[in-house]
């Protein structure tokens, strides 16, 4: 079966007064129908720019300068303005981190959801109106009938995010992109939003791309993980393989740098030395090598390709963690 979405050699460049910066550089991946994929990375990794480019929402002075984003037989990068408008909202919906800035503060929540449907002409105005309350109930907003006439400020943070999700799924898209959807929310609210996304994906048979810096959320929701660093994919594979058997030193270190609820000993966390990459001044060779504890000479000059290390698991590394004896003691130094 053909994948729902196929990204090939995507490059996003920003043309600034200080020079050209490659925010995304040669990224390729597929999203299967109904699949939940996580893209994880820290600031500057390119995870958000990758997501925005799928909807052609890259802010100025950024541009998609290379690659294809194939949705069926259409290339998103080549769509006309009319086509891209149809595509956004109808086929793909996006949920952002801060629901307050994504909602219009002077319009009633119900009306905004209705607008989102009417704008895409899948439903008539009356149909759209009738669907608002069921949609709000579907995202589990209590007393939805009364709440449709509320303004965004009358909603709590969690309810606003639910309203955004309702808007996102109102046209029954086949792909939902959620960019840090729970980062601004409390952990008890986060738990319910994650459950909601999981349930909606199952009910609508929609694919989900979850963009996050939180490895634990990936473990909770996603079937497959893409790890990004410095605008590149450095590791990719089934969630279980990535968590149990990470092969890229960045993935391996990241997993050991986070305190875990289930940790037994209070050992020192393994910290990744140095800073997240400055995209304007990337080093030669492997982009992670200045921070890597396991580098060899080759890493300083030659960038490794993203190569298969196990069936379905890819890593961009000359060394690979499976070739290192007692990595913990090396990393603790």
């Amino acid at each position: 079966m053909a994948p729902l979405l196929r990204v090939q050699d995507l490059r996003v460049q920003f043309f600034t007064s200080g020079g050209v910066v490659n925010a995304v550089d040669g990224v390729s991946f597929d999203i299967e129908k109904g699949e939940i994929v996580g893209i994880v990375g820290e600031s500057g990794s390119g995870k958000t720019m990758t997501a925005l480019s799928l909807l052609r929402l890259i802010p100025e002075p950024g541009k998609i300068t290379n690659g294809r984003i194939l949705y069926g037989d259409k290339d998103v990068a080549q769509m006309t303005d009319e086509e891209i408008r149809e595509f956004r909202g109808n086929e793909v919906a996006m949920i952002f981190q801060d629901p307050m800035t994504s909602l219009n503060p002077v319009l009633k929540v119900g009306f905004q959801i209705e607008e989102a449907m009417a704008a895409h002409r899948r439903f008539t105005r009356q149909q759209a109106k009738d669907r608002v309350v069921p949609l709000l109930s579907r995202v589990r907003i209590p007393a939805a009938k009364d709440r449709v006439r509320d303004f965004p400020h009358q909603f709590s943070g969690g309810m606003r995010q639910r309203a955004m999700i309702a808007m996102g799924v109102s046209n029954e898209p086949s792909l939902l992109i959620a960019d840090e959807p729970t980062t601004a929310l409390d952990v008890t609210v986060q738990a319910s939003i994650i459950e909601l996304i999981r349930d909606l994906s199952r009910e609508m048979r929609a694919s989900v791309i979850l963009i996050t810096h939180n490895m634990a959320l990936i473990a909770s929701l996603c079937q497959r993980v893409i790890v990004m660093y410095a605008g590149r994919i450095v590791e990719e594979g089934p969630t279980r393989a990535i968590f149990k058997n990470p092969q890229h030193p960045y993935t391996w270190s990241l997993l050991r740098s986070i305190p875990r609820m289930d940790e037994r000993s209070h050992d020192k966390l393994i910290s990744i030395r140095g800073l997240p990459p400055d995209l304007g001044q990337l080093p030669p060779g492997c982009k992670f090598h200045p921070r890597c504890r396991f580098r060899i000479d080759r890493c300083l000059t030659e960038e490794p390709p993203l190569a298969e290390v196990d069936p379905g698991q890819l890593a961009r590394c000359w060394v690979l963690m499976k070739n290192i004896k007692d990595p913990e003691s090396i990393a603790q130094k």
Partner: protein
Amino acid sequence: MSEAQPAAKPPPSADPTIKRPLVRVEKLVKYFPAGGGLLSRSVVHAVDGVDLVIGEGETLGLVGESGCGKSTLGRVIVRLQPATSGSVFFRDVDMTKLRGEKLRRMRQEIQMIFQDPYASLNPRMTVGDIVSEPLRNFRVARGRKAEQKVQEVMRVVGLNPNFVNRYPHEFSGGQRQRIGIARALVLNPTFIVADEPVSALDVSIQAQIVNLMEDLQEKFKLTFLFIAHDLSVVRHISDRVAVMYLGKIVEIGPSDAIRDRPLHPYTKVLESSVPVPDPDLELERKPILLKGEIPSPVNPPSACRFHTRCPIAQPICSEVEPPLEMKETGRFAACHFAGQL
């Protein structure tokens, strides 16, 4: 479990497992006017009767969700804000009663690290000036001596001492947090309140700062109050954890015990909500979802404040407020049905 008389139960501020108390908070209250005009009497019950003790050299974690009052509690303890009522004892001296020179002297021993290293550093001051400012303010050192001290603390927190003449914007988030830590350390304090010190940082940088704080604690015998919303970070760094909900502490205990067997239903809910970076464990984890929204601290629920959302609430919970009392040695919970969820 002891069947002792209620009168014999020690309050959390007299926890018998804390041998050398450094900070003791008793019946601490902080209300803010809730707006609504001059004649409005409504107040935000930000901190509403908190009792706790922090032992010398320990890290007490303070965890809770946004709006629970944890930051306010931290700020009132260091006296960045005056208490409405109640006491904060530092080495058995009630700080809320101190004024003038005595307060200044005590304040040298108590420092704070803030969440946002971007907002808490003056962008027009050099790093050297920022770190040495407390030395000047408290007239501890000047000139060459101050310079030496600044270079020393910068080295201790892992900053290059040659950067003293640089400005905050030239540093990354993690380095700025190190500057904030250097400033907190320069007066050789004994007690540091850290309010969300890692939550604004990238994941790979958080571990650097957590490890640094642990090292500093060991090196300088520091006592920490570590405030954060992230239970896994708090648990990692803390010896004991206090859980706050709507202005009140609902549970205090050793961090392992609180994770393994939470006594208060809210602690249990929090604990069940935190995802673990392990897909196998995530398959089994069943978060307990809370009904409704967090009530307003202007008009908090009667008796037990958690009763409106508690999965095991009974009629008594809305009628009689459960005191924060010792349920087992060193473990305190404010619940009529502690340990039953």
